[in-house]
């Protein structure tokens, strides 16, 4: 008797089929309009876990991108400052060569050179105290107002540096070592021996000025100036290398961002073509079942008994 069909079972089945069709339609419509394959974790628990992980990596990559921009800005500031310092040092060397011509220089000319040297020292000190966003670029993480005080003492700490994280495992130094560039020992001029504690470049200039005033030949100071210029070039090449590293990191970061976004999309987002096709099919199915139901439920024996 289980195959007995009654009006009630037909009605129920029709209702059930309509309801199922409508539910499927609603789900597909929701998917098509939200474009999300996973709207709640139970849609795909494994995919959800993966999506959370990818979103975490995306956030970290975005943060590394900001770190790289910030670091690049630091490096640009340091680079241009070092260029300025380098050209000032060049001018100082020229003046020293000029002032070393004892026979050709009158005391007045020497005084003029001394005055210019003193001005250049002030300029150099200003460059040494260059800051980026309120922080000294030559003094690590110190919160002192300047990197070099008026008495040429250095405010930075040994081994302290400003680091930026450019990916999960790498940090790079984005400031320059003020001690290596300008020398930290105020009493001693820069030595030609790189092994000793670097003497201050400012003291060196003071010494040259004193020599000029005292009539001492300043030709001997050229070695010290060259040693200092070498130290500055060394720092410039370090900064240049780091900038190149930053550029590479920037590119890696950009391609990483694209790759992560496509991964996220492949986990979370829908295949639009498939959903639209499914939606069309489901709409047709639903309309068919509506039409069929309307036809099937009408006639009974009542319609034919007169």
């Amino acid at each position, binding site marked *: 008797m289980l195959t007995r069909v009654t*009006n009630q079972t037909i009605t129920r089945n029709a209702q059930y089929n309509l309801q199922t069709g409508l539910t499927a339609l609603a789900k597909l419509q929701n998917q098509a309009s939200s474009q999300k394959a996973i709207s709640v974790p139970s849609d795909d*628990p494994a995919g959800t876990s993966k999506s959370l992980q990818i979103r975490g990596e995306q956030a970290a990559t975005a943060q590394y991108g900001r770190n790289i921009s910030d670091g690049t800005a630091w490096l640009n500031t340091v680079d241009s400052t070092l260029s300025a310092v380098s050209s000032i040092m060049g001018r100082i060397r020229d003046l020293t060569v000029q002032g070393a011509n004892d026979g050709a220089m009158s005391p007045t000319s020497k005084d003029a050179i001394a005055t210019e040297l003193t001005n250049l020292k002030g300029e150099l000190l200003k460059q040494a105290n260059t800051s980026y966003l309120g922080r000294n670029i030559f003094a690590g993480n110190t919160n002192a107002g300047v990197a070099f005080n008026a008495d040429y003492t250095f405010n930075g700490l040994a081994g302290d540096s400003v*680091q930026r994280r450019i990916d999960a495992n790498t940090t790079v130094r984005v400031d320059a070592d003020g001690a290596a560039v300008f020398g930290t020992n105020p009493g001693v001029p820069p030595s030609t021996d790189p092994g000793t504690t670097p003497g201050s470049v400012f003291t060196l200039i003071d010494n040259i000025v004193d020599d000029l005033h005292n009539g001492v030949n300043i030709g001997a100071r050229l070695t010290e100036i060259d040693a200092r210029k070498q130290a500055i070039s060394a720092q410039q090449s370090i900064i240049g290398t780091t900038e190149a590293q930053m550029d590479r990191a920037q590119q890696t970061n950009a391609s990483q961002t694209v790759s992560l976004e496509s991964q996220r999309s492949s986990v979370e987002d829908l295949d639009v073509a498939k959903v639209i096709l499914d939606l069309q099919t489901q709409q047709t199915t639903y309309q068919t079942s509506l039409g069929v139901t309307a036809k099937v439920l009408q006639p009974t024996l009542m319609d034919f008994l007169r």
Partner: protein
Amino acid sequence: MSSFGTLNTAYTGLVAARRGLDVVGQNIANANTDGYTRQRVTTSASVTAPSSLSMSQTFTVGQGVSVDGVARLGSSLLDARVRLATGTSGYWDVRASTMSSLEGTLQEPGPNGLSSTLQKFWSAWQDLGNNAAVPATGAALLAQAGGLVSQIANGYHQVDDQWSTLRSDTDVKVAQLNDAGARVANLNAKIRTTLAAGGSANELIDQRNTITTSISKLVGGTVRELPDGTNEILIGGNPLVSGDNFHSVALVGTYHMDAVGSDPVQLEWTSRPGSPVALDGGEIGGAISMLAAADGSGTGGPIAEAAASYNAFAANLATQVNGIYSTGANAAGTTGVNFFSLNGALPAALGLTVIPTTSADLATATVGAGAYNGDVAGAISQLGASKTSPDSVWASIVAGIGTTSQTAQQQSTLAGLSTKAAVDNQLSNAGVDLDEENVNLLSFQRAYQGAARVMTAVDQMLDTLINHTGTVGL
């Protein structure tokens, strides 16, 4: 047989046809009544007992038709199958709908979930690492940390609300169960009386079946038919209803999720407090399984497990962040302080608070380094990228809840399908078919006309005999 005997035979035919029409009318009237089972008049031909007194050898004819009763064309097997399927379906429906709203509170995956707040929290640490001792970045971190803490607490509250809502819903369901049980006992008493008096209890049995099915939906259970027409409903092996006796049950246990470990929610017989009823399904069974305490291995009640996950997550976050943060020094040089504090008197998810209140309090620098050093903050920001990060703890919590919910929804769909199949079978057997009833209507109508014609024929015969005998030629 006397001449009047045939009149009586025709009369029984009229009566039987009219009863048949009555029943067809009842069937058609109840074509759409929920739980109605179609009925049929059962008739049999009356036989004449051979008379030993009669010496004549004339053969005897039956004496018409007798109406034996009105049969209820239900099948107790199909009814039992419906009850079983409904019980299972009720169990999984409750679990699926509760899990579905529970996972809805997670807001994952998406920009509003805890994972997203956590990522912003790590980014704020990194920004602070880059610009340590800048008040604005410190304030931004503190705001993110405050947001994270309140989102964890909020998530815990939502889980707690789910639990409380389900707990009070279950109270209502137990009240429905007691009400339904009392009504079945009442109907059993009426059915027994009606049957004992020889009446038809079909409609009462239909009513009882409907209520019994609703009891199965609530608690599962098994039903036995008793010889006197009453039934017995057993839950966990003990009778809820037996004939006209009804034993009430009560839902006992705490109304607070935090206390469920020591005071579990369970169904008990009112007459025997302290011993829980073992439920094998039904909505109440599903709800009680959802309301169970967490057991530490992740297999306890899913709601309490979700709450425990929030606590474990909060504790893990505090431990990991504090572990690195306490190595740092703040602007004043103070070291060894924590970032998060956990109030032991509260669940970890609610007891989690941020200790520093201003950016100057933040210990972001490596001890001995410059004041603008942010290495400690940078190291904390890298917690998010580690293998054992709070993020991965959270992801596994979300995946766990998602899996439980997915299982419950699949089971619920399957149970729904098997319930539909069972109800289809039941209705295809017991439902009223209007075409069939129309055909029966016609045949009973014709039978009535036929019986009336027999009666007219006998009447005319008797008229001839009584009024026209001896009036030949007049």
